[in-house]
């Protein structure tokens, strides 16, 4: 089989068969986990004016439509925007072919029809772990777009899996349960595409003023990025 690093790289490039003996059983059912960064993320909204009835803060949720999240966030007095970018990225209408025949994405069209907001529109963004599952071509441009639509001092919450999470980690929908607790609802249809090292994350979000990392015991890094 080769060294662990070699195995990991093969998996990273999609070379491992999901039916191989290394395939781990996919957990089923919902689980909840404490999310320290979420509490910090919510508290970071207070200086921005949360609870102001005249001018509600705007928050963008990039995950799948979640009644719980919408209830939670509107209950806080936020103006909630929802765009399931993973769902959109899977839409065949955005696929294109590069000059060498390889498959690419029609990025101009994707961003005309998704995340088309003016600069600094949002006070906060919940990115969850979508960057780990997005097609490679979309990661950089999406981060640029998020930086564009997030206002100065606005906060972005993102999750990144560690290498130890394993190739077969299912995609989850995150539901806000409490200010420091999220529920993970496993969903089918998406595969972990990559693992970001901390250095990658810092480079990717270099336009952000600050980055705060929280490492969970379940191989998930919670990161708060402030614009």
């Amino acid at each position, binding site marked *: 089989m080769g060294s662990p690093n070699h195995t990991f790289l093969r998996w990273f490039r999609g070379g491992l068969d999901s039916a191989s003996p290394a395939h781990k059983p996919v957990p089923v059912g919902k689980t909840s986990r404490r999310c320290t960064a979420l*509490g910090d993320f919510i508290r970071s909204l207070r200086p921005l004016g949360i609870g102001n009835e005249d001018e509600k803060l705007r928050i963008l949720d990039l995950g799948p439509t979640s009644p719980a999240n919408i209830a939670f966030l509107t209950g806080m007095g936020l103006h*909630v925007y929802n765009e399931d970018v993973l769902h959109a990225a899977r839409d065949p209408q955005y696929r294109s072919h590069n000059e060498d025949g390889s498959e690419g994405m029609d990025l101009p069209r994707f961003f005309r029809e998704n995340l088309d907001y003016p600069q600094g529109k949002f006070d906060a963004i919940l990115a969850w772990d979508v960057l780990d599952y997005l097609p490679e071509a979309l990661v950089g441009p999406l981060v640029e777009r998020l930086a564009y639509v997030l206002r100065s001092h606005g906060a972005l919450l993102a999750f990144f899996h560690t290498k130890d999470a394993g190739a077969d980690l299912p995609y989850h929908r995150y539901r806000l349960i409490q200010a420091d607790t999220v529920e993970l609802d496993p969903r089918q249809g998406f595969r972990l595409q990559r693992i970001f090292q901390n250095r990658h994350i810092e480079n990717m979000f270099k336009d952000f003023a600050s980055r705060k990392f929280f490492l969970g015991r379940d191989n998930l890094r919670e990161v708060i990025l402030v614009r």
Partner: protein
Amino acid sequence: MWKARPEDNKPMTSNPPQPSQTGAASSAAASPTTSTTMPPKDNSKPVPSFSERADVGHIGKSVVIRGELTGNEDLYLDGDIEGTIDLRDHKLVIGPNGKIKASITAREVVVHGRLEGNVAATDRVELKKSCTLIGDVGTQRIMIEDGAFFKGAIDIKENPQRSKPAAPSFPTGAGSSMGSSPAYNAAPASQGSFLDPK
């Protein structure tokens, strides 16, 4: 010997008296099986669904409308509509076959099908699990079923007629719970939730 009684001369049978032989009225009282079969007949009296009610306008799935649609009655739309829909104080239901591209104003909007456009509902909006809504929603209450697809903004508007409740509290520590919001506790997340105006 024993003197035969009149009833002993009747032929032996293991079957109880059949309702059909004794009449429906008496059998209903006599036979438990009959009594259990009767209620479904009573229940089978159709309770008209929203789309079947006489006071509800109905636009079927083969209908295509381009333009402005206004009305003073509840409306069920299952067709292909493009333009604007204004029902003011009435309820609009978009059926599972409905494909709507329109800005909607109504008291209450229920979406089963596909809707592209903004929704302004004075009372509430309900997104069923089969629905796709691309647009902004402004309403006092919203219910979203698990499985509904929504892309856009949600603005929960305050009912001016209601007295203003106390200001919401926000977490001061990592362990603070946001679950104290009555809106959030109103319904289990798996079924959707109604949001009361703040």
